[in-house]
């Protein structure tokens, strides 16, 4: 059964409690800002909201934040300029762009301006959280906790890139291994197809063919024990989630 994950929210909250972040949200769309604020609070983070770039730069001077979520299309100046000015004023905190422009040129421009990651609208909450936490880990705000090295009965062998359990062994192809690693690093989090395509295949568009689904199925066949609920669940409309312990 393509499972409904009941423990999802509980897990997210537990996760957040250990790594609660104080975030600055810069977004001129009131409705989107309201939703994002709700999400972030539900996930255990706290959030301050600005509508304009200039305002954000002022708030940054007064208050300490762990990261900034920054819309590219702001009424007074674009997000790229905000980041450039932030960096010029010596603020080194991670910046995640929120944008409606989906092309590599803008992505590169954003990263060049000093941004750290990029989410395109419309986006899924969990994708935003996964990216924020990755930024947090990278910037060393939280100590790097190595992700679990066990999925069900299997122990991962990162050198030989295969799974073993006693004498049993499963060989993984390179992409299967990367997929498993990305999912394990975000264990318990629902990851969108878009996120997986980008992290595993470096592809920033959605192929019409169900390539991710097919790969998840293949991985499922390799790691799942017969008769047991799958470690890799599909959540309709949202994405895929890995539960290391059944």
């Amino acid at each position: 059964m393509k499972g409904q994950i009941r423990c999802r929210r509980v897990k997210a909250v537990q996760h957040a409690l250990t790594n609660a972040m104080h975030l600055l949200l810069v977004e001129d769309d009131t409705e989107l800002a309201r939703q994002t604020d709700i999400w972030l609070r539900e996930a255990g983070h706290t959030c301050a909201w600005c509508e304009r770039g200039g305002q954000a730069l002022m708030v940054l001077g007064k208050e300490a934040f762990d990261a900034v979520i920054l819309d590219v299309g702001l009424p007074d100046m674009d997000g790229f300029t905000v980041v450039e000015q932030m960096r010029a004023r010596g603020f080194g905190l991670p910046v995640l762009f929120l944008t409606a422009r989906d092309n590599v040129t803008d992505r590169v421009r954003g990263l060049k301006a000093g941004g750290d990651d990029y989410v395109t609208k419309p986006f899924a909450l969990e994708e935003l959280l996964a990216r924020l936490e990755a930024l947090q880990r990278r910037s060393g705000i939280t100590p790097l906790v190595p992700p679990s090295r066990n999925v069900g009965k299997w122990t991962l062998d990162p050198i030989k890139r295969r799974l073993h359990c006693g004498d049993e062994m499963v060989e993984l192809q390179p992409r299967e291994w990367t997929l498993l690693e990305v999912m394990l690093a975000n264990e318990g989090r629902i990851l969108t197809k878009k996120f997986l395509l980008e992290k595993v295949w470096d592809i920033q568009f959605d192929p019409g063919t169900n390539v991710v689904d097919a790969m998840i199925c293949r991985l499922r066949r390799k790691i799942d024990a017969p008769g047991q609920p799958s470690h890799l669940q599909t959540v309709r409309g949202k994405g895929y989630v890995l539960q290391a312990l059944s």
Partner: protein
Amino acid sequence: MFSKLFPERMPSTWRLGLLLAVLMACSTTLCITVAGWAMKQNLSSIARAVVLDDLGEYAVLYNRNGLKEIKDVFAAGGHENDQAVRITSSDGRVLFEQIPVAVAGYRWPDNAPANLQASQTLLITVEHDRREQQLLAGCQVLNDGNILWFGRTDAEDRAYVEHIRDDLWLAGLASTAFMLLPLWWFVRHVLRPVQDMMKSTHKLAEGSTDARLVAPDAVPELQAFASAFNAGLDRIDALTTELQSANDNLAHELRTPLARIRGNLEIHHDHSENAAAREAAARGMEEIDRAADLVQTILTTRAGEHKALKLHLETIDLRELLTDLHDLYKAAADERGLQFMLQAPESRLAPLDRQRINQAVANLLDNAFAYTPHGGAVTLALSTTDDQNRILVRDTGPGLSATDLTKIWQRFTRGSAASANTPGMGLGLSLVRAIATAHGGQTGCRNRDEGGAEFWIDLPCSV
């Protein structure tokens, strides 16, 4: 009419130069020929007058005092070097001869013509065995029946004509040099500006949008042409920029509301315990993701068709790109029971926007996968020539109808083999074409002899 006169690749400076030189040579030759002929006419009538005149004078002297008078005249000196005087008897004996070296050796006639009356004068031309110069000679029957001969060579006249001819050649050369002034003007004010403009248009063709035609020294017509052309380019540039920013705005205007709806659906989904409500929210989110992709596809296609697509060019190994795509689609091919083969024998570096090309090839693969029945085969291949890279996707599906072949690349056109179950809105191939166009490439398709269709993207080796 002169175009066939010259070798095809000869620059126009040389053509004009050669043409001018030939024209000047012809006109100088004509001048000299005509002038030479006219001078000869003049000189010969003068020479006849001189001969007749001198002959008359000698005849008067002889008739007055006989041979003695003539001898006295010569003894007194002052005789010209190119004139000869003879007196012969009526039976042809030479009675007197005064012939300087310059006039020696001419074959004088033995006697005057029998019908020549006394005091009548006859002019004849006498040839020399070895010299070119002719001797114009006159004879007159004197009062005592003897005959007076007077001859004068045309050596002096010839030297004169020769001299004038040399001068004329010199004048011709000088005027040819003057005629080259227009050539210099042509090169500086017409040809060089045209060459500069050609360089600018080459840059434009290579994709640089800021190249403009510059012609400060050009003739007014060329300057007018350049400024009209530049105005057109400015307009295209402005339109392109406008299209780009309109695209950005449209993307923003369309995707932000989608994001709002999706956010609300997600909150609804996560907070609902009702399975049917969750299912409905999930379907809604899927639809929104599809709609967002559709917006992006339409905007990208629109930009690509008008060369307004922003490309992020990197040097990419096409074999690697295709290998990764093969890897991405392999599991899906296995699931569909399709054989999926990769034929990319050699690596090939090219400046490309990796994501865009990925997307274009992925669209062709999506198509092939959608139309190829279970048990069929799809091939992804790379074929290269010196200046072009061709990415091919072959399938064993139903192939294309005659209408498909011409229309399939247009927006919202679906292949005739599409059924209600085949996904897509007929935008995939127009996006492929738009991306290829943005890279300066082309797309094509055909039915394979073995059955099935073949689609390809041609990309130039340098953009």
